């Protein structure tokens, strides 16, 4: 038997020992990790551990499975504490029982070494804005970060960078929205370059269909939150980078405030709504924004300067309808396409932070990777928002409107859970979609395109609209709210998010 647990209370070692007793075992080896009275050279009277529970659980189970397979040991138990611990208290207990002592010793040693390097047990700091900073404690990457000295010589050798440029990077704070196909290369290069603080915002959990283009992740991580996974990977890549994570998407109420904590923002989501939100928040906060997006084999890149003009809305004033613009899920994408564009975003970010030469006239860059066509279309700042009071006024108005409508997204792991919570379920997908992928719950069916005309069918009930991805349902819910209907919500992530959740809990 193999058992791994994270425990908030005192570890019952007798019970663990009893679990490992088996007539076939002739050797039993235990390792206990205790809290010392010194940490990083300073006297301490205790410690506080926090684990990212889901991640720690899966990583712990994986380590036990590896130790078992490697050393031929079947009976392994490990418990790691969280919470406040006093000096001398038991922080981690590992027991390995086997037919012979050698395997038991080796398996036990393997588990503690792997835990120290890989278990996501961190010192967690909470900020007022609702984000979380994971500061690696000595059990995770701290030990490594003390001995690891980053070597940036390959970039400091560049005349335009030098030690002064490196110091600028170390002082820089960059926020990356979306840790997917664009975010993977962008974050990797920025962490590698030694950007001092990286913020990561991603509300999604990893799906198997992400892996062909989202190079930060492993197959074994499917079902886990991407922001946390990305932070773990980047902490391993460059332990000197401070990482801040948001596992919920930003919204009109907090985006500009969060942006104000950073020097630069990269918009790497696959969500049109989010692109407009980032644009408006960056313009209002006066933070430069690097936008990129892809479609199949091509991409677009736009840098919105700190002054905010011209912006995304100067080109396309209004957000297009969710079903009009396509997506990676609906239209397909080849992995290197976001790879190229995300790397270009990292390049633009470094150019801005290091003040490298770059074209100063604003432009939209079109990249066609099939035909090797790279096209810069200059944007005239006198057109677009300038005709409607300027980018800042347009952005403030858009943010205020979004706040007035409010956040319609609601997260559920099952549809019947929402029904039990008193929501009337409304399927806004097309008839063919419902036929091929029926919802496993009784629902009303009104296609998104007809929601406004048929709103009366919803009565006064509190409604949860849903579709495949959560985009059409969000559009529809907002349309209803704009018409004055209250209590109208949208299932965040749509049915795809439920499937991910199901795969995770049943795996």
């Amino acid at each position, binding site marked *: 038997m193999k058992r791994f647990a994270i425990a908030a209370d005192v570890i019952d070692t007798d019970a663990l020992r009893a679990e490992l007793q088996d007539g076939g075992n002739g050797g039993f080896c235990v390792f206990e990790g205790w809290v010392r009275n010194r940490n990083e050279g300073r006297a301490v009277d205790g410690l506080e551990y926090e684990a990212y529970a889901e991640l720690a659980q899966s990583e712990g189970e994986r380590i036990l499975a590896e130790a078992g397979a490697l050393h031929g040991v079947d009976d392994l138990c490990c418990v790691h504490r969280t919470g406040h611990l006093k000096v001398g208290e038991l922080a981690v207990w590992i027991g390995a029982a086997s037919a012979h002592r050698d395997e038991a010793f080796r398996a036990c040693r393997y588990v503690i070494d792997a835990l120290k390097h890989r278990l996501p047990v961190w010192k967690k700091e909470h900020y007022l804005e609702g984000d979380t900073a994971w500061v690696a404690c000595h059990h995770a990457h701290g030990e490594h970060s003390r001995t690891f000295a980053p070597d940036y010589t390959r970039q400091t050798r560049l005349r335009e960078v030098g030690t002064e440029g490196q110091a600028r990077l170390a002082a820089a704070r960059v926020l990356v929205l979306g840790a997917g196909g664009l975010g993977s290369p962008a974050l990797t290069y920025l962490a590698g370059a030694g950007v001092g603080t990286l913020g990561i915002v991603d509300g999604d959990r990893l799906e198997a269909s992400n892996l062909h283009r989202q190079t930060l992740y492993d197959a074994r991580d499917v079902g886990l939150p991407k922001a946390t996974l990305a932070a773990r990977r980047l902490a391993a890549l460059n332990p000197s980078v401070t990482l801040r994570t948001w596992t919920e998407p930003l919204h009109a109420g907090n985006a500009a405030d969060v942006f104000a904590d950073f020097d630069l923002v990269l918009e790497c989501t696959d969500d049109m709504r989010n692109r407009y939100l980032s644009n408006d928040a960056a313009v209002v906060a006066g933070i430069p924004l690097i936008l990129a997006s892809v479609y199949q084999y091509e991409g677009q890149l736009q840098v919105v300067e700190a002054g905010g003009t011209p912006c995304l809305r100067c080109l396309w004033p209004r957000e297009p309808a969710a079903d009009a613009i396509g997506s990676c899920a609906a239209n397909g994408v080849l992995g290197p396409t976001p790879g190229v564009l995300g790397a270009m975003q990292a390049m633009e970010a470094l150019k801005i932070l290091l003040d490298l030469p770059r074209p100063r006239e604003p432009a939209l860059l079109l990249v066609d990777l099939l035909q090797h066509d790279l096209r810069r279309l200059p944007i005239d700042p006198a*057109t677009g928002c300038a005709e409607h009071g300027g980018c800042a006024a347009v952005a403030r108005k858009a943010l205020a409107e979004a706040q007035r409508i409010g956040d319609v997204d609601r997260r559920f792991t099952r549809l019947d859970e929402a029904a039990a919570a008193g929501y009337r379920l409304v399927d806004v997908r097309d008839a063919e979609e419902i036929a091929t992928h029926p919802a496993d719950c009784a629902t009303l069916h009104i296609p998104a395109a007809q929601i406004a005309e048929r709103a009366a069918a919803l009565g006064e009930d509190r409604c949860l609209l849903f579709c495949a991805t959560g985009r059409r349902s969000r559009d529809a819910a907002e349309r209803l709210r704009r018409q004055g209907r209250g209590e109208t919500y949208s299932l965040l992530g749509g049915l795809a998010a439920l499937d991910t959740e199901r795969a995770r809990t049943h795996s």
Partner: protein
Amino acid sequence: MTTLHLQYYAQLREQAGVGAERVTTEAASLGELYRELAQRHAFSLPADALKVAVNAQFSDWDRPLEDGDTVVFIPPVAGG
């Protein structure tokens, strides 16, 4: 009649089935040209959801067409 070189991006390329084509048209403006093309290729996006550029410069839809113009239609894209 004007002969133009056209380029399509994103779902326009997909719906047209080609990335570029040469057309001869009687359309007098970019707006008229797009209406003509939208019908021929069954484009799903309305003109006001697009940007259009002529000879590598963004342009208004009422711009008249000249022989040899290179016209590029660009929808916003959101993939990542």
